Structure formats: C-alpha cells, structure tokens
C-alpha cells in the first residue's frame, strides 16, 4: 500500500502531456470573452458612466456596471468587515478597481468596447501609504468605526508582560519591514460561466481553491439560491491563497452569463494579476524581545501596522492570525503584548497569501532572536533550542501542542548545514543563519472549518470513486485522497477515481487553505472509506456465509480464509453501486475574536531552516549556496508531494527574501510583469535539502500536520541572519537586494562619495530640475503635462512582407512609413501590446539569408549578420568566449532562439515606467515628467549622463561590442554606411537609424578579438536585464596594459566608455592595486539619482571583478 511511500500523482499522465483542462481550456460553443474596465485613479468619485457607445461596437453582447447588479457587498469576512462591491458604485478606491465589464465575441472587440466607455471621475486625495493614511487630515476611504483609515485594531496582552519586563536582563528592539509580493501563480485567475435559462442554474468553471465560498458569494450577490450555482471541476494552476475564497471575477462572469444567455469566459491578463488581485499584506513591525540572565525569553512586545489596501478582504483574519502567532512563538515566560492596526490605503487589497501573516512576523521575531543572541554571545541555534516549545506545551494563544519536534528540527539543520564549523568564519563574506516557524494545520476560523465530508462509490463496473468538495490547486490532495481510499478499501491505487469541486457531485468541504488540505481530506475520505469498507465486509460476510470479523479487504477483494469475492460483485444487488457519505470532524476550538485564545488547529507543525550565503561586499549581491529545511509535519502520506511542497515554499521564501517586491508610484503598480518581478528562476536557487522528521501527531487524523504554508515562513529571516553573519550588517527590510546590502555596508564603514555637481556646469540644469521635482515640478507636470494613455487597442497588422534580399527589405520599409522591420519579434510584439508602436506592415527579415550569416574574414574579423539569433551566435564554434558569455546571460534560452543580434542592439528602453504605461516624457511628450526621478530608480536607471530621461540602453551586446571596437553596417535607400556601435545610440534604447534604414551586419575587428576580454553583469534574477554590466577588453603584454577598452552598461543612457579607467590602466601592470584604483577612476563623472547611488559603488566593484578576470585570463 502507498501510505507513507513516495507516490506518483494520480494525474501525472494528464499533467505531463498537456491533457489537464484549466479554465481557459474548457470549450463551450458560443463562449463570449469578457474584459474589465478599471479605474485609472487611486481614489475618485464616479460622476457618471456612459456605456451607450458600446451598443454600436461590433461583437459586443453585454456591458454591465454597478447599476446592473444588485446593490450587494461581498461577504468576505462578514459583518462590518464587508466593504466591497463587484463593480464600483460612486467611488473607486484603488487603481485597477473594477468599474464595468464587457462581454464580446473576441478579445479585440471586448478591448475596443472598453475604449468607448466614458467614465467621468472626480479625483479625490489619495493615501497610498500607511503613513499618509494615518496622517492628520488624511482623506478617508471608508467610514470605519476604529478611526480614520483604521479598519481594525487588535490590542492584546497575553500573560504578564510587566513581569517579563522586570525579569529581562537584555532587550532588543527593532523595526522590520516585509512588503507586498504577488502570488504570481502560473495560471491567472479566471472563470467560465454558463447560465441555463431552462433550469435557472449557473455553472462556473473557475480557478479556485475553495468552491464552497465561490458558490456562496456568487449566489448571494446575484440573488440566486445556493442550489442554483454549481461549481464544476477544473484543473487549478496554483493558488497560494490568491484563489482562496472569492476573488474579483467570478461574480462578473456569472452576471454576464445570466445577462447574455451565453457562456462567458473572464480570464485576467498577467498585468491584471499583478496589479489588481490580492497580494501579500505589507507589515511594518516594531518589536521588542526580552531575555533573562539564563537566556530564557521573558517577554515580547509588538506594534504592527498592516497595510490593508483599499478593502478588507482577509485583512482582519491575517492580522488576527499574526497576533496569535506572535503570542505563540517560543516559550515566553512573562507575557506578550501585541497592538496591530489594519490601515486602509488606496491600493489593491491584500489578501490570503501562503503563511498568512506568519512570514511577516517571523521575519521580525527570528531576526531579533539573532540580535538578542548576539548581544550575549549565545549561539543562535542553542538559544532557540533553549526557548523552543516541547510536546505538551500550550502557547499563550491557547494552541495545544500535542506533538512538537522543533528541537529535533533545529538539531537536524545545525548538523546538515555544518553550523559549528561555519559559524566560526564570521565576517568572512560567507555566513550561515537559521530560523524557525510554527503553523496551524487548518485553523478553525469558520464554524464548519473543522468539518469535511467525503463520498465513496463502489460500482458494479469495477470503478471505485471518491468524491470530495475541496479543490487541489497543485497541493496534491487528489492523490492523498486516492491513497487513503485505496488503503482503507484494500484496492490498487490505479483503480481509484477522484472527483473534486463539483457542486452536484461532491459533498461539503470548505476548500484548500490554511494548510488544512491533507488533514481534512484524509480525515473525511478515511472516515467514509472505512465506513464503506465496513459495509463491504458485511455484504461479503453475508454472501460468503462467514462472520464479518473474518472478512478483510485486499487486492480489490473481500477475503475470508480461502473464500474471496471481488468487491464490485458485492454491489450488484444494490442497484449496481454502494455509495457512502460520511462527515469527519477534527477536535478544535473555534477562533475567538474577542480574546485571541483558542486551540484552533488539530495539530501544529514546526520547521527549522538553515541557509548558507555568500555576500559580495563589492556589489552587494547575495548568493544562496545551500538551504536545509527540517520539517515536523507529522506523518507524510505522500513524501514526494510533501518534499515538493517544502522545496517550493522555500524557493518562494527565497524570492521574498531576496527580490520580490510590488512597487507603487502614487498607488499605481510600477512592475506588473514577470520581467520586472524578481521571483526565482531555476538558476537563482540552489538545490534545497529537505528533512522530514515528524512522527505522527497523536491528535491529528492519520497523524498528519500541514506543510503547504510553513515551508515559506523561516526562509527570509534565515537569509537575513546569514547575511548578518557573513558581513556584519543587519538588513531589516525585505527584499535584501544589493542596494540595501551596499548601503548598509557603506553606512557602517562611513564611506561617502561626493559628486561635486556644483563644479560641473554641464550638470547644473539637471541638478536643479532634480532638486525641483519633489518641490512641485513633478506634481505640475504629472497633473497638467500628461495626456492620458490611449485606450484604443493596438491596430491589427495588415500585412507581413517577406523579402529575401536586403535591397528588397529596404525598399519595403522605404515605401511604407508605417512599416517596421522584425527580427525575432521578441521586442516588437511586446512594444505593440504596450502601446509603444503601431506598425501596419511588418517586414520580416528572417528570410534574408545574408543577414543570418556568421563568418570570419581572412584577416580574422568576425562578421555577424543582424539576423543571426543570439542562440546561434553562442553556438558558433569560433565565437569569442566573451561574446558567448554575454549572450548566454540574456533573457532565456527560448528568447535567445528567437531574438536576433540586430533586434537585441536596437531594442527599446526597458524602464518599467515607460513600458508599463506611465505617461512619461518619452511616451507622452515634452510636457510630461520622468517618473524615474522620484519613483523607484534603484536598479534600472542611469547614474551618469542622464538628462530628462533616466533610462539606460538595455542591450548587453552593445556594452560588449563597444568594448570590442565593433562597427555596424547600415543599409538604407540612400545606400550603405558604417558606424562604430557606440554611435548607433542617440539615447537610451534609441538609435541613430534614419527612416527606412536597417542594420545589416556587425563586424568585430581582429585586433580586438586578440585582446583579453571579460564581461560581468549584476542582475536580480537569471536572464534579467543588467542592473550594472561591465566589459573590459585589454591588450596586455608581459603583464603591462598596452591598450584598454572599458565599458559600463546600464549606468548611462548609452553604453559608457569609461576612458578615465582606461587611462589609468595604460602602461601599468595589471595587478590588484592598479585594478582597485582604476575601477574608481570614472566616478567623478557620475550623477546618481536619489535611489541609485549604490550603483556607483556596485559598478566599481563589478569593474574590479571584470578587470581581475582579465588579469587571471592573461596569466593563464
């Protein structure tokens, strides 16, 4: 039998062959496509909505506004906490809030219809940060009982805090910030709805973790009976909380289906996923922890500010969960006091997200544990073991720990990471850190959350079917369910069919959230299966004429001694099917909102993680070398699935620790794209070592404890602790990106650079504009100088020309002013979608054979046609190693197979304001501001030479080709010309190409190819655009530099030839001292922005690394 053994997912064949059907894959004839019209303002009154013009648009079947829906609020957490409508009525409270929804025959028609809906807004003052929301006189989002923009306050004291304070010998105090992240599930939110007017039933195929809540909310809001709303089974592509309970599209799709009488599919775009759906709640935690002379924790005091966003969703519940966690973490002898305030802001709301407040408070608590240990010279793991819960403990929040193997987890990771030996190397640049977590296995936050039902059908045709009402968004419940049923019924796993989600077919369950999935499904299915097994044994006993005690179920048969009968043969007399439904309950207390004390979970899981990092002190980059994750998750029904959950959670935790952040500019999300969101790719994380320690929990069915969320919780503080150990600075705000590390190191070491702008007349104008921007200029330009982005969708491309010769291509471009050349299309197509280009004709250069040639001339020059793909260039046998290195750092293998050399060189700037639709100077004209002056400019903007636009040229190839003295050939109507690559650029991602010209060939001269060259790049994730890049190409003879080219990328509007560095190197020995001095020689030209001064230091560090690589290469 399979319980406790690694088991393949029962859906493996469908999942791995593309046969699983997600919402977008369900095909119903006549399906309409829906799109949502969203508020462009963070806070505004809706004066009027005029949808009349949509009536004349082709293919439009329906348009709905709030006036078309019953005036009801989503229930969410109920009572006074309900505050949100499916479509905004009278007021919009965040950028992206739903104002209207359209159903049409095609995507293009729906988008066009959105473009003609006229909404008149009266913008209101907006409060987009917690600080602004709490300031005196701040604009109010709602009428809240707790105060202006305060949705909720939880102020709880557990135990005797004062006694704890008195007993404390040492206290540590700190402020810890854990910002917003996105779930970023691979499958976007979506619903397909179909209304049957004959039966008056609404069917929903929806990507959800919890059909129960979807059904309940949709029925309530649309005024239907529960029985009229049927959720159907679909594959669900990830949840992590984003699809836990109702989201923002199910009601809209349902309403449109009812209105039109046709199936309607509403699937969010990736941009909508990032910018408008629930996200991680941002926590600002001020924490104090005390410790007595024996190293025991005496008290904990926390002041937490939770950024709710514009509506409540699950804010109250996340806040409450966090408070209970603060009270429960470790044995704390005196007491715990927490004051948590849930603050409304004009941003899309926070919501359920893996960990549910625990990652945020764990970051604070676990960071501070190390700070406390440090104050007294205690080993951080010993300190934690001393204060860890033991089995039998009851936490301050009333959690009864029937099993608790936290100590074993800590000991396991201590050994596995090599703690003792590695802790001795403090401050070496390599460090280890650890942290712990505890988590519920399904919290009883609803009356019925401790109850689940399951149905077992044994059919005469041999099928054994389990029916369960929850959903499996990838967490593996369907397989667990099958394993449990197979075990209890004595049948092979392959005979079990599992049906989930379907409202007609499945009994009661609240869904997959709060790490309850396995506990509740195993319990319910086990209970039903045992009941069915008992019935089968009774039937067999009767048929075989033996006592029921002699009958067992094995191999699909009922067996008594030598007698056996197939179980399907037992049910023929029952009309062909035995169907048994049972309810199972776990023994827990309902959450107590008044006291915050209740034993809300059947069992509590524990985990300890240890991380080893290497910190580059010159650039601030943090590399994770090793992670060990020890989990007390009780029994593991399917270790394959459990380990996969742990590794996935750890990697998500690494993302939160090191890169993931949602960034806002006046309430609007700046980075709503995977391209601009630093979640880990495969090369960004090491293999994760997992250790499952848990013995079965005595209080939990099957001894199981939850694992889905806890695996994310300890990671970020473990990383912060490791960084502190490695380089001696404590970062208290996530994510730990290189700017924070370098900034902390610089502050500690007292280093300060001066740029002497007052001595550089060429920079006075820019300097004074940057001074004036926050003093009114930005506000003025933003308010009066921008044109709203055009709402019209991209114009279709009318024709695709496919020339076979350069002359033909030039001709095609010359004839049609609205023609654009296309290489791989990897930049052009996104640009069109981003509203940055509207070509009507594409001239496909892929068929021009001469553009796809690479060759070496007899003289040794390298000639690369612009049509050569990046992948082909990297694969060419005689490609220069430095070019291979540059190319393989770009984007992804797939993009490299498509993107061309020419396309890479000519690609447009990648500034996230520009690309993501902010009406900036480059988009909107000379009267518009540059959003990067005051907005987030830490990573991708210039530190040198910028004028009105702060963006950089994104091409890494350009950086290297400039260093290699490459030239580029250009063909046009007027003939051919040649430019040094450096002169190809007039501005960031802007070329000097004239109308109708194309680049044709890049030539790298032999002399350059004989030099020693190296390329280095700082980026936030594997394949990212450069944050800083450097290419050095040196002619070295006997250790002395005879000629030098040094180019910095991503620091200036165009590739920056660092001539001061070159001059410093000439005629000198290339040794570490020369390199160190040379790497700084360019700094006098820098003029960084408020947020990116760290890039000057990082660039110096990168230059050192690059020049050092040349030195080593030469020596080799």
């Amino acid at each position, binding site marked *: 039998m399979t319980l406790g053994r*690694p088991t*393949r997912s029962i*859906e*493996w*064949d*469908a*999942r*791995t*062959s*593309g046969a*699983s059907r*997600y919402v*977008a894959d369900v*095909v119903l004839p006549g399906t309409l496509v829906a799109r949502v019209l969203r508020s462009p303002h963070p806070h505004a009154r809706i004066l009027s909505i005029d949808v009349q013009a949509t009536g004349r648009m082709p293919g439009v079947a329906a348009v709905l506004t709030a006036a078309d829906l019953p005036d009801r609020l989503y229930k969410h957490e109920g009572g006074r906490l309900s505050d949100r409508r499916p479509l905004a009525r009278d007021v919009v409270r965040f950028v992206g809030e739903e104002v209207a929804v359209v159903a049409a025959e095609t995507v293009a028609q729906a988008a066009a219809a959105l473009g003609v809906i006229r909404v008149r807004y009266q913008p209101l003052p907006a409060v987009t940060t917690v600080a602004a929301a709490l300031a005196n006189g701040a604009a109010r989002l709602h009428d809240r009982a707790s105060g202006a923009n305060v949705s909720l306050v939880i102020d709880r004291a557990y135990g005797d805090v004062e006694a704890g304070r008195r007993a404390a010998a040492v206290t540590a105090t700190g402020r810890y910030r854990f910002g917003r992240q996105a779930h*970023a*599930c*691979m*499958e*976007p939110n979506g619903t397909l709805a179909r209304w049957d007017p004959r039966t008056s039933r609404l069917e929903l195929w929806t990507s959800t973790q919890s059909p129960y809540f979807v059904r309940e909310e949709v029925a309530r809001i649309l005024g239907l009976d529960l029985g009229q709303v049927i959720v159907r089974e679909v594959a669900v*592509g990830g949840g*992590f909380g984003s699809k836990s309970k109702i989201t923002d599209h199910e009601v809209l799709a349902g309403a449109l289906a009812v209105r039109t009488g046709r199936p309607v599919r509403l699937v969010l*775009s990736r941009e909508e996923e990032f910018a408008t759906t629930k996200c991680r709640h941002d926590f600002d935690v001020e924490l104090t922890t005390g410790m007595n002379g024996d190293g025991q924790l005496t008290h904990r005091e926390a002041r937490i500010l939770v950024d709710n966003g514009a509506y409540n969703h699950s804010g109250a519940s996340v806040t409450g969960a966090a408070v209970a966690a603060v009270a429960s973490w470790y044995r704390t002898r005196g007491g715990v006091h927490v004051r948590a305030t849930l603050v409304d802001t004009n941003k899309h709301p926070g919501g359920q997200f893996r960990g549910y407040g625990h990652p945020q408070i764990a970051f604070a608590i676990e960071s501070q544990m190390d700070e406390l240990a440090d104050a007294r010279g205690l080993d951080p793991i010993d300190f934690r073991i001393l204060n860890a819960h033991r089995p039998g403990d009851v936490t301050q929040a009333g959690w009864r720990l029937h099993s608790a193997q936290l100590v074993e987890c800590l000991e396991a990771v201590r050994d596995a990471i090599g703690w003792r030996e590695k802790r001795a190397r403090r401050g070496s640049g390599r460090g280890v850190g650890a942290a712990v977590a505890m988590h519920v296995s399904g919290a009883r936050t609803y009356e019925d959350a401790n109850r689940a039902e399951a149905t077992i059908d044994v059919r005469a045709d041999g099928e054994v079917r389990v029916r369960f009402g929850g959903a499996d*968004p*990838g967490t*593996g419940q369907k397989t667990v369910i099958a394993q449990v049923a197979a075990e209890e019924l004595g049948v092979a796993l392959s005979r079990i069919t599992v049906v989930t989600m379907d409202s007609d077919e499945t009994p009661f369950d609240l869904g997959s959230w709060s790490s309850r999935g396995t506990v509740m499904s195993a319990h319910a299915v086990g209970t039903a299966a045992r009941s069915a097994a008992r019935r089968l044994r009774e039937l067999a006993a009767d048929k075989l004429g033996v006592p029921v005690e002699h009958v067992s179920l094995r191999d699909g048969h009922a067996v008594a001694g030598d007698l056996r009968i197939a179980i399907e043969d037992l049910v023929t007399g029952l009309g062909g099917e035995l169907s048994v439904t049972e309810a199972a309950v776990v023994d827990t207390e309902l959450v107590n909102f008044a006291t915050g004390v209740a034993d809300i979970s059947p069992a509590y899981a524990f985990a300890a993680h240890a991380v080893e990092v290497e910190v580059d002190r010159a650039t601030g980059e943090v590399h994770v070398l090793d992670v060990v994750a020890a989990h007390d998750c009780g029994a593991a029904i399917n270790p*394959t*699935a459990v*380990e*996969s959950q742990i*590794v*996935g*959670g*750890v990697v998500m935790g690494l993302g939160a620790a090191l890169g993931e952040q949602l960034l806002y500019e006046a309430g609007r999300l700046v980075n709503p*794209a*995977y*391209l601009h969101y630093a*979640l*880990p*790719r*495969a*090369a*960004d*994380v090491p293999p*994760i070592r997992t250790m499952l320690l848990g013995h079965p929990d005595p209080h939990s069915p099957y001894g199981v404890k939850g694992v889905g969320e806890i695996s994310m919780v300890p990671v970020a503080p473990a990383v912060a602790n490791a960084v502190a150990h490695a380089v001696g600075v404590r970062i208290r705000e996530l994510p730990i990106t290189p700017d924070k590390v370098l900034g902390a190191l610089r502050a500690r070491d007292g280093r300060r650079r001066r740029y002497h702008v007052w001595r550089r007349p060429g920079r006075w104008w820019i300097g004074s504009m940057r001074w004036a921007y926050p003093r009114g200029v930005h506000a003025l330009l933003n308010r009066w100088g921008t044109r709203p982005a055009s709402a019209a969708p991209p114009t279709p491309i009318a024709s*695709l020309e496919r020339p076979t010769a350069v002359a033909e291509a030039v001709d095609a471009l010359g004839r049609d002013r609205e023609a654009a050349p*296309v290489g791989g*299309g990897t930049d052009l*197509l*996104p640009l069109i979608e981003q509203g940055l280009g509207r070509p009507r004709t*594409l001239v*496909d250069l892929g068929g021009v054979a001469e553009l796809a040639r690479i060759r070496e001339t007899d003289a040794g020059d390298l000639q690369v046609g612009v049509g050569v793909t990046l992948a082909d260039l990297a694969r060419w046998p005689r490609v220069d190693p430095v070019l291979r290195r540059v190319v393989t750092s770009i*984007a*992804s*293998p*797939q*993009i490299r*197979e*498509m993107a061309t050399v020419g396309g890479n060189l000519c690609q447009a700037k990648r500034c996230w304001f520009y690309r993501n639709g902010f009406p900036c100077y480059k988009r909107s004209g000379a009267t518009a501001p540059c959003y990067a002056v005051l907005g987030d400019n830490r990573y991708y903007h210039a530190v040198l030479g910028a004028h009105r636009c702060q963006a950089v040229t994104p091409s890494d190839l350009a950086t290297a080709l400039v260093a290699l003295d490459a030239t580029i050939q250009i063909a046009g109507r007027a003939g051919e010309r040649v430019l040094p690559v450096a002169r190809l650029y007039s501005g960031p991602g802007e070329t000097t190409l004239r109308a109708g010209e194309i680049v044709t060939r890049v030539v790298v001269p032999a002399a350059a190819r004989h030099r020693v060259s190296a390329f280095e790049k700082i980026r936030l994730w*594997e*394949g990212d655009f450069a944050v800083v890049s450097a290419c050095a190409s040196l002619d070295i003879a006997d250790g002395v530099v005879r000629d030098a080219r040094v180019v910095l990328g991503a620091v200036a509007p165009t590739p920056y030839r660092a001539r001061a560095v070159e001059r410093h190197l000439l005629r000198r020995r290339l040794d570490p001292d020369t390199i160190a001095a040379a790497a700084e020689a360019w700094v006098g030209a820098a003029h960084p922005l408020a947020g990116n001064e760290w890039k000057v230091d990082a660039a110096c560090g990168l230059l050192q690394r690059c020049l050092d690589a040349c030195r080593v290469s030469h020596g080799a």
Partner: protein
Amino acid sequence: MRATLTVNGRLIGVVIEPDDRLLDVLRDRLGLLGTKQACGRGECGACTVLVGGRPVMSCLVLAARVDHVETIEGLRDEARGLREAFADAGAFQCGFCTPGQIVRGVALLRDGLPADDQALRREISGNICRCTGYSGIVRALRLAEHDRPGSRR
C-alpha cells in the same frame, strides 16, 4: 491568408492573419490546448513549443513565419521517459508550467544535458515554476537523461 504548416508531423492548412500568434493558432484554431498562456509576453515559458526543433515562446511567434512546430501533444511519446521522471521526482504540482517544462526538456535531451547542474538550471531558467522550486525538475531531467537510448551512462 491561407498557410500550411507542419504541426506534430502532420501538414495542416489553416487560415491565419499576419499578426496571429502561433499560440492562438495552436489553441483556438487547431484545438491543441496543451500549450498554455501564463503571461502572453514571452517572459515565463509556459507557452514553449518547438519551432524547427528549437524551443521558442509561442506567444511571441507570428504563426505566418512558422513552417514546422511540435507541441506537448506531439511530444507525448518521445517524452514518455521524461514524463514518468517528472512524476517520480515531484517535478510538478499544479501542472500549468509543466507542458512548457516538458517541451523545453525534450529539446535539452535531444541536444544532451549540460554536465554541470548549475548550467542545467540556466538552461531551464526560461521556464518559471511557482510551485516546485525546481529541484524536482532538475532531478527529473537527470533521471530521463540516463534512460535515453544511447545516452551516456
């Protein structure tokens, strides 16, 4: 305009517009729903197919420029070993990125996996997975590598 292209080994005629994306032609015109859209901008790899044997982002490929494409459906048999390895190694959870991972994996196996694990991870860094943390995928590729006929042992 009318075009013919070879899809999973079969020559198919289909009407396409100049700006039709390959992803949409595969899914909407040809009913091949295994290839997924997760971002529509070539940033995540969920839509990976093989064009001319090379892995590409089908959401950024203009169908009019394609002669020969292989999708997850067509690679089902060739990828059998890899698919079983995915199942054994816990290399998928929600499964939404999985078709793209498998297709990309097939191309890698055809070329031969890099010997170095970090190099292998870079080769699959164009396929985002939010569920598994990638360890299982790497393990699955190594398992499949050893099972291939004629592979190095």
